[in-house]
């Protein structure tokens, strides 16, 4: 187990280095650079050249014959190894600081979305499987079909319009109210309001979290419900379930203790895969809900060609996905004793 973990971590580090190279080349290969966007409509070739020089973008990518260390990628990797991701080209805000400030927002939203998806998706899948081809099965299948096919931005706007503008129940967007006095600790506002013993803020934060979590959680919910249904159906037909039933165990106990536990394995895999999807979905959800997380930040950086931000954001997202997948792999062993890591 220990060596397995070390091997996995080493491999992750190598993958990160590879990703840094790919992103570096990739963002610079897209036509239009930060200078073009910063100058906007007033951009003349001369002004763009002047700005490129000021930003150091005129330097060679990999190798400068005059001064081998004065090239963009070696400098970047060198800084990266020192834990420095650079600064936003225009804002001058260190990418590391911005990640630290924004990751909690994305984490809080993604976790809430995942919890929502599990809380609704799992029972829906179980019910659909147990009452196969019944009315409830049809309802669950239809909802999950709609969940998968409805674009997140559309659903988000719809939710916001209906619950905030029409009914006035929930705030339309943002993480926290205009007059909030919450002083963050961890950056996970829900947790922070509990730590501060601030009930008003807790309620405020929760209200702001509901709509974006539903919007972001809708696709994972649908997928989880479908996987749970089919996986449970699969398991329910197997011999050991029949044996358990034959032993005279209560049907609920058979389903929940024996069948569901084994049916969860593919569900956990899907949750792992969804970690990446959640980060991807966060781009749209965060933009729609003015959520100050990583998704909307990287999205902006891409349209502005802010190289250090795009690089830092992608490397960080890859790291998060790697860690989540590692956790998923480790949880297989916990769910199924037959699986062992060496």
């Amino acid at each position: 187990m220990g060596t397995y973990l070390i091997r996995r971590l080493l491999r992750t580090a190598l993958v990160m280095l590879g990703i840094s190279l790919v992103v570096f080349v990739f963002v610079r290969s897209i036509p239009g650079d930060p200078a073009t966007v910063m100058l906007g409509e007033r951009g003349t070739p001369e002004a763009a050249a002047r700005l490129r020089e000021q930003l150091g973008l005129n330097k060679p990518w990999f190798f400068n014959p005059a001064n081998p260390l004065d090239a963009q990628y070696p400098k970047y990797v060198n800084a990266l190894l020192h834990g420095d991701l650079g600064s936003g080209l225009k804002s001058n805000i260190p990418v590391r600081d911005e990640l630290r400030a924004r990751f909690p927002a994305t984490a809080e939203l993604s976790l809430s979305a995942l919890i929502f998806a599990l809380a609704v998706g799992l029972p829906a899948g179980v019910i659909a499987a147990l009452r196969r081809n019944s009315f409830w099965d049809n309802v669950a299948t239809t909802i999950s079909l709609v969940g998968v096919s409805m674009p997140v931005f559309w659903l988000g706007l719809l939710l916001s319009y209906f619950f905030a503008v029409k009914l006035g129940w929930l705030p339309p967007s943002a993480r926290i109210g205009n007059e909030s006095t919450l002083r963050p600790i961890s950056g996970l506002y829900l947790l922070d309001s509990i730590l501060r013993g601030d009930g008003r803020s807790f309620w405020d934060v929760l209200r702001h979290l509901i709509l974006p979590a539903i919007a972001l959680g809708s696709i994972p919910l649908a997928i989880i419900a479908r996987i749970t249904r089919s996986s449970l159906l699969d398991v329910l037909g197997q011999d050991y379930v029949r044996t358990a039933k034959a032993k005279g165990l209560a049907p609920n106990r058979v389903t929940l203790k024996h069948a569901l536990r084994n049916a969860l394995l593919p569900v956990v895999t899907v949750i792992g895969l969804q970690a990446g999807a959640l980060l991807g979905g966060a781009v749209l959800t965060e933009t729609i809900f003015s959520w100050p997380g990583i998704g909307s930040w990287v999205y902006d950086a891409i349209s502005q060609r802010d190289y250090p931000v795009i690089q830092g954001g992608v490397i960080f997202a890859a790291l998060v996905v790697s860690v989540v997948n590692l956790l998923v792999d480790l949880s297989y062993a916990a769910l199924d004793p037959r699986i062992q890591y060496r």
Partner: protein
Amino acid sequence: MKKFLITALLATLPAASAAGTLVFGANGDPVSLESGNITDGISILVQRQIYDTLVDFKDGTTDLKPGLATSWKANADNTAWTFTLRKGVQFTDGTPMNADAIVFNLNRWWDKADPYGFRDQGRTYEIVGDLLGGYKGDASAVIKGIVKVNDTTVRVDLNKPSSVLPNVLAAGYFGIASPAAIKKDGAKYGTPASTPVGTGPFVFQSWQTGDRVTLKANPDYWGTKARVDTVVIRSIKDASQRLNELKAGTIDFANDFTPDALKSIQADKNLVAVKRPSFNVGFVSMNNRNQYLKNDKVRQAIAMAINKKAIVDAFWNGLGTSSASFLPPVMAWANSSKVPADYTYDPAAAKKLLADAGYANGFSIDLWYMPVSRPYFPTPKPIAEAIAADLSGVGIKVNLKTEDWAKYLDDRNKEPGFDMYMIGWTGDYGDPDNFYGAYYGANASDDINWAPANLVSLLEKGRAATSQADKAKVYAQIHEITYNAAYRVPVVHSSPLAAARVYVKGWVPSPLGSESFNTITLLGKK
């Protein structure tokens, strides 16, 4: 005794008029709160609240009024401008605003060797290069030197005559910051980890990136003191969500709605639609490198074949006007009386012109439209489709094309460029040079391959002209030349749409896109 009575009387007035939190919905985050190093509208908007500029604009216009300078004067040939500073003004950190502070700020932007410019840490101050020709020592730079005459007087010496220096320095890019604060925060100044300090009506409190900037009223402001306690400027990128927030009452006012939101705003009894005075131009550019567009008759035919008025009526909901001038209506004084008010829409005559040019059977051409919404073209794609339909009516087959904004901006300047493309301009200050100079002449982009010598020298002459009467003569000629050449056909001058809750009073939107919020009251906000 009299003073006591007045204070006592004032105390009985409703407190609501001088209190409350004003919440603005901006279409994004500021990039930086450091003056001279920004070009985007949201940074300017936030900075306007924190900083003052040397010269200011009268509310709702582009006319100049005193700012931190109470007066300014040029020498006879417009090569040196002297600014007399307001006395007794302090930055909100308690340090004095004086000639040293002004020289410090100007040098920081203009002198590449200035130690407080932090250029080695990525500062670029590109707007100085754009509006003032370059930096210290550059051959093209407008400024030659910045001199402290005495504690309340600063002189700016120029390399070439310019009548517009005070206008340029009034633009929202050039807020005057506290030198002490810059020295204290160093390279961090202007980022969320710093405390920007100015002399403006509001004092910086906090900035959560991607979310909001919070400001407090400056109790010692030298000008009109703010009537609210707090201003929160929220970043709400999505226009539909901005409207949702406004309708839900979670923000008080907001900017940058597309014209199609007008109906929905007008239908809500809690909201008022607010039109910004038009200060932009959206136009179609034609490239001289294209074999068809090289021909004068073809370009004139195209200008005639586009039913601009119908297009503006259809897509701007009454929030735009069409004219034959590059200049927005407020600068009509610089238009030529020999040029008609608008292009004539005459498809039959256009067809005839095309036949004269040898293209009776028409031809096929690319029209590029922008992938982003801009105040001058809020919905570029359907507008491009309408133009294409008009042109197909006279036999010109149009291929509509678009690409990512960064690539678009890049490709238009790369040979061979686009055949025809949509672009525009929003002004920084009220001088015709700010419009013509950006797209014609020596300092303009290279997208149409057309800059005749007489036009270039007229543009130089316009920049040096001292009186408005002299300017009017020069720009009338420029208007005639550019109109007849028809390389760039103005389509619209739009009024960007903003909106507010009904209780927001005293908001005077500036044509330049941002204004101080110190005049706004919130009487009756729940």
